[in-house]
C-alpha cells in the first residue's frame, strides 16, 4: 500500500516533468533553492524564472536549443543542497547550476561548482565571500552583494550629517558584514562620526521591546538597520509605539523590498532611507515590459524575488547565446564581462570578481493608500559601489 502510494507520487511527478521536456534536447539548468523554507521570497522567484523560460523558449530558445529548469528543494540545509547539486549534475545531467538563497548554501554550492568544474550562478545569496574570499572560476553572482547595498546607502547617510549612530542587525555574517562595511565607509565619508550602540539580535528571535529601549537609551541621532522579515516587523511596531523613530533618522538595508515592506501595511515606517524595489513606480521600458508580462501571466504584482528569478534565467540565456552552447569552459568565458538585460536595466558580470553590476533602488519610505511604498528613489548602478580593483584582487584568491 505504502509502496504503491509512493510509486504513484513518483510516477505522477515524473510524468509532469516529462511533459515539460520538448522533443529536441534542451539546455538544462539545475536550480537548487530553499523553496519551502523561504517561500515568501522564493515563490515569486520561481514565477519570475518560469516567465523568463517561457519567453526565451517562445523566442526560439538560445543557441538553437530550448532551455529547461530542473528545480530542487534543499530544505535550507547546505548538505542537502550539495547532494541535490550532485543529483542534478550526475543524474539529470544539467549543463549548469543556479539558485541559492542562504549565504552559506551559496558558498557551499560555489565551492561544489569549483570542484566539479561546472558553472554556478548564485542568484540571491548576498555574502561578499561568494565573489571575494570564496570566489572561483566557475561561480558568478547576480544580486548586488552586502557590500554593494551597504555602500549604496552610505552617501545618503552621510548627507544626513548625523553624528551619533546606533546599529541593529541580525547576529550572523550578513548583518555583521553589512554593519562593518557601513561603519568603515561612513567613517571615511564623514570623519568624526560616533558609533554609540550595537544591537546584534538572534535571527528571527529579536526581543524587540528591549532592543528598542536599549537603542533609545543610547540617544543616537541615527540608526542603521539590517533587520528583515519578522524581526523587522517587530522592531518597527515596537519602535513606533515607543517613539524611537520620532527624532531619529533610520537608514535601512533591503526594507524597500516588497517582501519586507508589504507585510507592514499601513504601519510601514515613514521616511527611512532604504534599498528596495518600487515596482509600482519604475517607468523604464524594460521594467514596464517585464511588469506587464508578469501581471498578465500571474495576475499578481512582482516582488524582488520575481526580478531575481527572471534575471537569473535572462543572464544565463545571454551567456549561452554568447558562448554558442552550454560548454562549461565557453560559458565561463562568456560570463566574464557578459552584458545582459534585466528588468532593472543593463548589467555586466565583472571579469575581475564575477559579480554582476545589477543595482538597486535607493529611496525613502512613505505610506500611501494604507501601504508602504518607496518615494524619491533613484536607481544605483552596482558598478559604482565597489572597492577598488586592487582591493578586490587582494580579497579574491587567484583562480
Amino acid at each position, binding site marked *: 500500500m505504502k509502496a504503491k502510494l509512493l510509486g504513484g507520487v513518483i510516477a505522477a511527478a515524473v510524468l509532469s516533468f516529462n511533459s515539460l521536456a520538448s522533443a529536441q534536447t534542451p539546455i538544462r539548468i539545475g536550480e537548487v533553492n530553499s523553496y*519551502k523554507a523561504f517561500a515568501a521570497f522564493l515563490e515569486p522567484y520561481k514565477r519570475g524564472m518560469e516567465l523568463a523560460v517561457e519567453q526565451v523558449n517562445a523566442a526560439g530558445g538560445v543557441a538553437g536549443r530550448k532551455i529547461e529548469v530542473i528545480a530542487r528543494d534543499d530544505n535550507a540545509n547546505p548538505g542537502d543542497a550539495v547532494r541535490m547539486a550532485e*543529483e542534478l549534475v*550526475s543524474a539529470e545531467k544539467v549543463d549548469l547550476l543556479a539558485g541559492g538563497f542562504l549565504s552559506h548554501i551559496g558558498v557551499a554550492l560555489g565551492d561544489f561548482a569549483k570542484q566539479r568544474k561546472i558553472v554556478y550562478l548564485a542568484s540571491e545569496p548576498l555574502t561578499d*565571500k561568494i565573489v571575494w574570499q570564496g570566489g572561483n572560476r566557475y561561480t558568478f553572482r547576480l544580486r548586488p552583494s552586502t557590500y554593494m547595498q551597504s555602500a549604496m546607502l552610505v552617501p545618503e547617510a552621510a548627507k544626513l550629517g548625523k553624528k551619533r549612530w546606533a546599529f541593529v542587525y541580525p547576529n550572523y555574517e550578513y548583518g555583521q558584514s553589512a554593519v562593518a562595511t557601513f561603519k568603515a565607509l561612513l567613517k571615511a565619508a564623514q570623519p568624526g562620526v560616533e558609533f554609540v550602540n550595537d544591537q546584534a539580535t538572534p535571527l528571527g528571535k529579536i*526581543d524587540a521591546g528591549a*532592543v528598542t529601549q536599549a537603542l533609545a537609551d543610547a540617544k543616537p541621532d541615527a540608526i542603521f538597520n539590517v533587520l528583515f522579515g519578522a524581526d523587522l516587523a517587530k522592531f518597527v511596531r515596537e519602535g513606533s509605539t515607543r517613539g524611537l523613530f520620532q527624532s531619529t533618522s533610520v537608514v535601512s538595508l533591503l526594507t524597500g523590498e516588497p517582501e519586507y515592506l508589504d507585510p507592514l501595511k499601513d504601519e510601514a515606517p515613514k521616511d527611512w532611507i532604504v534599498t528596495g524595489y518600487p515596482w509600482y513606480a519604475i517607468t523604464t521600458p524594460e521594467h514596464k515590459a517585464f511588469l506587464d508580462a508578469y501581471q498578465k501571466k500571474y495576475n499578481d504584482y512582482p516582488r524582488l524575488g520575481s526580478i531575481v528569478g527572471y534575471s537569473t534565467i535572462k543572464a544565463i540565456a545571454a551567456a549561452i547565446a554568447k558562448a554558442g552552447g552550454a560548454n562549461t569552459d565557453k560559458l565561463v568565458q562568456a560570463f566574464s564581462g557578459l552584458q545582459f538585460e534585466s528588468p532593472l536595466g543593463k548589467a555586466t558580470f565583472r571579469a575581475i570578481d564575477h559579480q554582476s553590476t545589477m543595482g538597486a533602488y535607493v529611496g525613502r519610505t512613505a505610506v500611501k493608500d494604507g501601504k508602504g511604498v518607496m518615494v524619491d528613489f533613484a536607481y544605483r548602478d552596482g558598478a559604482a559601489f565597489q572597492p577598488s580593483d586592487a582591493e578586490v584582487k587582494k580579497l579574491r584568491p587567484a583562480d
Partner: protein
Amino acid sequence: MSLSGLFVQALNGLAAASTLFLLASGLSLIFGVTRIVNFAHGSFYMLGAYVAWSLTDRLQGAIGFWFSIIAGAAAIGVIGMIVELTIMRRIYRAPELFQLLATFALTLVIKDATLALWGAEDLLGPRAPGLAGAITILDRRVPQYDLALIASGPLVLLALQLLLTRTRWGVLVRAATQDRQMVAALGVNQAVLFTSVFALGAALAGLGGALQLPREPAGLSMDMTAIGDAFVVVVVGGMGSIPGAFVAALLIAEVKALCIALGDWQTPLGFIVAFPKFTLVAEFAVMAIVLILRPWGLMGRPDTTIRPQGSTSSLLTQPGTRQSWFIAGFALLLFAAPLLVEARSYTLVFGIDVLTAVLFAASLHFLMGPGGMHSFGHAAYFGLGAYAAALCAKALNWPMWAALVAAPAGGLIGAILFGWFCVRLSGVYLAMLTLAFSQIVWSVVYQWDGLTGGSNGIVGVWPSSWYSSKAAFYCLAVIVCGGATLLLRRILFAPFGYAMRAARDSVARSEAIGLDVRRIQWIAFSIAGAFAGLAGGLFAFSKGSISPETLGVSRSIDGLVMVLLGGVDTISGPIVGAAVFLFLQDQIARHVEYWRAILGLFILALVLLFPAGIVGTIRAWTLRR
C-alpha cells in the same frame, strides 16, 4: 546605563516572560501527565497566531479582537483534542520517546498546511484595541499592550493553580503528574484525562500565539523558535511544575533583557564584551547552568523518566550463523554497488549520505538504546568531528586520512567534556542538557568567524585526489561507516555493552553489583561522541563544505527521528531508520511540492503501522508467528 533605564528594561523582560510562560505552561502540563515530549507544541503556538489573525481580519472592534484571541485559543484546543484522539492515543504504549516521532511528523504537516492555507507572506495583525498606545514611565514610553501582557502571565498562572488545586480534575492531573499508576489504581478514566490535558495544553499554546499577534506577525518560522523556548523554560522550571515554568520564564526573559540593556562593555583588559550578542544562546546557557546546579530544574522533582510504565526492553540476541551470512552478503552488495550503477551516478552520492547518516544514527542509538541516555544534541559531536576534520584539512593541510582520524578525536573530546556533566542527570533533563551544550557549541562556531568561518562555514574540504572519484569515496564510506557500525555492535555484545544496558535497566542493581554507573555512562557517552565525530568527518569530505548547520538542532532531531523510526530497542533499527528516512526525504522532496507535509504523513503512517519502530515491530510480528 541608568537605573531608570534598567527598571524599564526589567518591565520589558516581564512582558517577554509572560509570553514564554504561556507557551511553556501547556507543554509542562502535557508532559507532566502524559509524559509526551510534544514537539508539535510550537506548531500549536504558530497556528494560534494564524487562526487569530484570520479572525481579527474579519471581526472588527474591541469585542471582535478579544473574541478572536479566545476563539483562536479554543480552536487550537480542539485541534489538540483531535490529535490526541486520532494519533497520540494509539501510541502511548510504544517505546520511550516514540511519541516524539509522531509530534515531529505533525510539525511538518502543520507547517505545510499553514503555508497552503495562509500563504508565505508574514501576516501582521492589528494592534489591540484600547491598548495600541504607550504609557510614559520614567521618561520612557512603554506600550500599553506590554503592561497587559505583564499582567496576563500571573493571571494565567493563578487560573491554572486554582484549576489544579480546587477542582477534582486538577487533583487528578496533579496525581497523574506525580504517579501515573496511582491514577490507574483510582479507577480514573485515564483516556478522558489525557485527552483533556492535551487539549488544554494545546489551547494554552494557541493562546500564547494569539496574544503575540499585536507584537509580531504570524509567520511560518514561529513554530521552531517557539518550541525551543518552550522546552527550555519547562526544563529550567522543572518538568511538570507550572510555578517552576513561571519562575524560569522570568529568569530567562530578564537575563536577556539585561544583556540587551548592558550593550557593549569595554573590559579593563582591553577587549570588548558585546552582551547583546549573548542573547543568541542566553536561554541555553541559563539552562546548562541551572541543570548542572539543580539536576531537576528549579522546582521540579526527581524521577521524570520518559520510559513508559510496563515497557520491557527486549533482549539483544547474538547474531546466528544465518544472520552473519546475511550481514556478509549485504556488505558484499554494498561494495559491488559501484559496479552495478554507473560510476558517477547519483546512487553513489546518495549512498554516501545514507552511510554517514547510518553511522550517525547508530552512534546515537548506542547512547539512547543500550545506553538509556536520550540526547537532543547529538549533532554537536557530529559537527565537532566535521569541524575538526575540516580545520585539520584546511588550516593544517593534513591529508584526508589524518583529518579523518582527527574527526572522532574532535567528537570524543567534546563528548568527554560535556558527557561528564550530562551523565549526572537522567531522562528528559539529560536530553535537554545535551541540547543546551550543543546550542552553546553551535553559537560559538556560528560566531567565531576567524576560526570556523562563522555562519558561512568552511569550504574546500574535498577528499585527496585518490578518493575524488565518487566510487572510491563511496567504498571508503562503506568501509568506514560499515566498520564503525559493526564495531559499535561488537561493543554492545562485549562485557561493556552489557554493563551499559545494566546501568540503563536498573541503576540501583548495577551499583549493587559493583558497576560504577556514572563512569560507565560517561564512557558510553564518549564512545557515542567519537563515532558521531567520525560520521561528521566523512560528511565534511563528502560535501566539500560544512557550516554551523552540521551541529544544529535540526540535525540532532533528524538523528532522533532515524533512531526512533527504526526502533530504539533493536540494533539494526537505526540502520533501517536512517535509510528509510533519507530515502523518503530525498524521493518526496524531489518530486512533490508540499514535500514536508507528505513526508510528515508518511512518518505518521509508519508510526501507526509500526508502533515499536520498523525493525522492532517486524521482529515482534515474526516472533508472534
